[in-house]
């Protein structure tokens, strides 16, 4: 059972998704309940992972390894460590609200909608738990198909443009990663990620591989200047699509940096980290300003996502500056801790914010900030939630948003005062756009008749936002268990990142 736990997590949603697809629109009620049950079952099955996880070791756990393609020495190999486990659980957790939020809202081809999200859930868990690079890439690319269809079928008016842009951007990024992976395979003779990490590489090779990885992961994160697909995709995607995109898919870029770039090309990273740090700071500051001027709620949150993901890349790469200036490895782990917590926290908060926008959109069918005003008068409970999540987005202490940003800013202070000073600008900027959003949409007098006729949250919506709210507070108030899970893996990763792989 233990050995197959991850396999079940990958395949249960996929199989359930196919069954939902076969049930079809004519048996929608059954399809809906099956989708909900499957997504909840996935969360329940992921709990033993947390309970039985050994927090003393950096090794992969719950390992399953079966021959897949003997000719390529590729294995169907799954396993989680402290870096991937939180992301696997996050994926399982975030799919449930997506299913519930769409319960009666999605009218056209609803069964297919549920099926697409279930299949995507399985593929995303596969990405995080694959320990074989070929299997990783297999899931990584396969996931584009359901997302392409989700945005294209259930999206807004410019959905075709947005979904093509999304697909081609990410496809372009990932094919070069594929080239790098095949190159590594030819050198290492197998596809296991561990063998790639152990493979000695010259600096020139590392630079090229780093560039290929960078292209793939930077597009996914997304980092400035390859972020332009994200606002389009977010705006046009249906609510569930935006939630998954922001909460999980962006994390794959960050995960890729931690799992591939840092351990496989440490010397290139050490050489080129100023580039990543600079791009991260640009994302944090410039995109923060861009977010302020948005007139569309979803676009605002999309830009805020890019800014917040800047902390992930900053935290991961500031490590090298810390080691360079202080010569100490101990303090370096803090930046990576911050990056990881930021990923989890942003997954919860941005997902919740997109769900909030979805709640409003379902009632008013517009995302324009100017169409709203005084919503608090008609939807007080909803307003409480939205204010809460907006504050979490600004990094209010006591919410999960605080922990990640604080750790990263603290770590970058060790590296350089100016890094932390620039990164801390986000505290002002995110307060600006989050609170302005809240002020314009929620407060003030009732703006128009439509707002006056709004009804407050129903039980379904309340449950979804409530659970996410509890999680945001839990991680914010007591992040210790999360940090404990990550600790050995982060230390191992830092050791890998500061070691050299150049053959003598």
């Amino acid at each position: 059972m233990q050995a197959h736990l991850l396999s079940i997590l990958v395949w249960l949603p996929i199989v359930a998704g196919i069954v939902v697809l076969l049930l079809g629109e004519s048996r929608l009620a059954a399809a809906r309940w099956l989708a909900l049950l499957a997504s909840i079952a996935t969360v329940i099955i992921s709990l033993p992972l947390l309970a039985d996880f050994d927090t003393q070791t950096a090794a992969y756990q719950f390992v399953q390894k079966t021959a897949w393609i003997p000719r390529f020495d590729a294995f169907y190999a799954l396993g989680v460590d402290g870096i991937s486990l939180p992301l696997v659980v996050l994926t399982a957790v975030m799919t449930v609200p997506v299913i519930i939020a769409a319960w009666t809202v999605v009218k056209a081809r609803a069964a297919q909608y549920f099926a697409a999200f279930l299949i995507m859930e399985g593929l995303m868990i596969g990405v995080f738990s694959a320990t074989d690079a070929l299997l990783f890439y297999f899931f990584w690319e396969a996931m584009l198909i359901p997302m392409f269809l989700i945005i294209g079928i259930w999206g807004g008016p410019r959905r075709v443009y947005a979904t093509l842009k999304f697909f081609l951007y990410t496809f372009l990024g990932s094919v070069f990663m594929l080239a790098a992976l095949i190159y590594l395979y030819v050198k290492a003779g197998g596809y296991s990620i561990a063998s790639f990490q152990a493979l000695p590489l010259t600096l020139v090779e590392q630079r090229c591989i780093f560039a290929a990885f960078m292209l793939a992961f930077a597009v996914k994160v997304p980092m400035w200047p390859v972020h332009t697909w994200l606002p389009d995709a977010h705006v046009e995607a249906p609510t569930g699509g935006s939630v998954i995109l922001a909460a999980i898919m962006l994390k794959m870029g960050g995960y890729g940096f931690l799992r591939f770039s840092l351990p496989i090309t440490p010397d290139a990273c050490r050489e080129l980290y100023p580039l990543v740090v600079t791009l991260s700071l640009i994302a944090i500051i410039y995109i923060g300003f861009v977010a302020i001027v948005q007139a569309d709620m979803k676009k605002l949150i999309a830009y805020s996502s890019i800014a917040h993901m800047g902390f992930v890349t900053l935290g991961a790469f500031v490590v090298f500056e810390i080691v360079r200036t202080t010569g100490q490895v101990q303090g370096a782990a803090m930046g990576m801790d911050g990056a990881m917590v930021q990923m989890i926290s942003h997954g919860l908060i941005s997902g919740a914010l997109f769900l909030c926008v979805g709640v409003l959109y379902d009632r008013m069918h517009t995302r324009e900030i100017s169409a709203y005003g005084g919503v608090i008068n008609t939807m007080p409970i909803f307003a409480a939630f939205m204010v809460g999540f907006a504050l979490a987005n600004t990094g209010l202490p006591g919410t999960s948003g605080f922990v990640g940003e604080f750790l990263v800013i603290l770590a970058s202070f060790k590296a350089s005062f100016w890094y932390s000073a620039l990164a801390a600008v986000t505290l002002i900027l995110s307060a600006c756009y989050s609170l302005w959003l809240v002020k314009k949409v929620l407060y003030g007098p009732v703006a128009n008749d439509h707002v006056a006729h709004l009804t407050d949250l129903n039980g379904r919506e309340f449950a979804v936002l409530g659970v996410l709210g509890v999680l945001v507070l839990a991680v914010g108030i007591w992040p210790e268990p999360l940090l404990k899970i990550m600790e050995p893996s982060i230390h191992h990763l830092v050791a890998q990142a500061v070691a050299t792989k150049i053959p003598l």
Partner: protein
Amino acid sequence: MMTAWHSMSPAIPEIYLAFAICVVLLFEVFVGIKRPGATATLTLVVLVIGAALTVRYANVGHHQLLFDGMYVADPLAFVLKLAGFLFVAVALLYSRMYLENRDILRGEYYVLALTALLGIFVLVSANTLLTVYIGVELLALSVYAMVAFDRDSGIAAESAMKYFVLGAIASGTLLYGMSIVYGMTGSLDLEVIATRLATPGSLGVILGLAFIVVAVGFKFGAVPFHMWLPDVYEGAPTSVTLFVGTVPKIAYFALMLRLLAHGLAGTSADWTVMLMPLAVLSLIVGNVVAIAQSDLKRMLAYSTIGHVGFIVLGFVAGTPSGYIAALYYMLVYVLMALGAFGVILLASRKGFEADKLDHYKGLYRRDPLLALVMMVLMFSFAGVPPFVGFWAKLRVIQSLWETSHLGLVVISLAMSVVGAFYYLRVVKLMYFDAPPDSLPATLRPLGPRFVIGVNAAAVLALGILPGPLLDLCSRLIR
């Protein structure tokens, strides 16, 4: 007598096929003329029996020479012949209703398909320049006639004429190149040629090679010898496009392998350099020009050119690993192309050709199965996992890395992203757009629909578990 028979047994597929062609022809004259469709059924039976005989007699464990070294029987030839039977059967199955609706369901069509298959077999087993040429011509002449089969169609006649004239020139260059090689080595036997040309070639050999490469490039439709391909694909009846676009690829692969990779192996440094621009140009022109097409058949024609670029890239690597990659790519491509043209055939009906991209608007609403099949194939063509097209590209890129062709890796990957765009556009039309009112319903014949479903399922299954087919291809190439 027994020994003579025994020594010929690996050639049974060809002998049987030649005999079966006569039977089918006579059957058409006496029975088929009265009962249209009977010949079609008989042909399927012929193919099934042929496959069974091939498994029984041509399944040789090792390399064998027959007919004084004119003919080679090896595991590769066995598998390619079996694939030939399978692919022709599937192609004819998809075509039947289309032919019926256009009143060209005649036995000769099936006879021509069988003679083309015989040409493929001869080529697959060729071991001398002469056998190669016979195979090439038998295949080519059958295919020219098939393109012109709808004799009342002006555009079909035009494309057949183009194909014939250009094809004749290509055959001429092939023959000329062969004659130079013969002159330099004094032998027609490919194995003898291989030993005599063990070192990089002199100027004369390079000249001969150049002509051969041009001819091979023409047959495959590699840029800049691709001009005929879009016109023929567009102008021929769709069932013929299906045939021309799929099954002969087996033969052209065998042509390259037997002639260049084996016979002229010693000069591989020369011909890989010649093939490289062909491959690169095919990738670029095929994928970029396909974007501008509004006709689905023409779009698939340019996409074929792009895929041919990948197959040729396997040969550019010039290593057994590269040939394995090319073989795998070719088989996978034929499987996918069969399905894609099959969808066009099933979406057409009497008096209506579903050959424009606009005819696929909202196909999902009109025929979910066909749309699903087409989507699977489009993603597979684009090289997105979990479909088999991904592994084909991966295998080619691996062989390029093994030979350190960084530039080719980058170009091929960049062009597959360009290619993804027009494949996705088809998915967009089918799934994201609303169907116009005026389009007629699709055909719903049970048999072909079942087969096309299996075809798409195979694309998925081979994509999830690519191991067996990759293993098979690796075992076939020496």
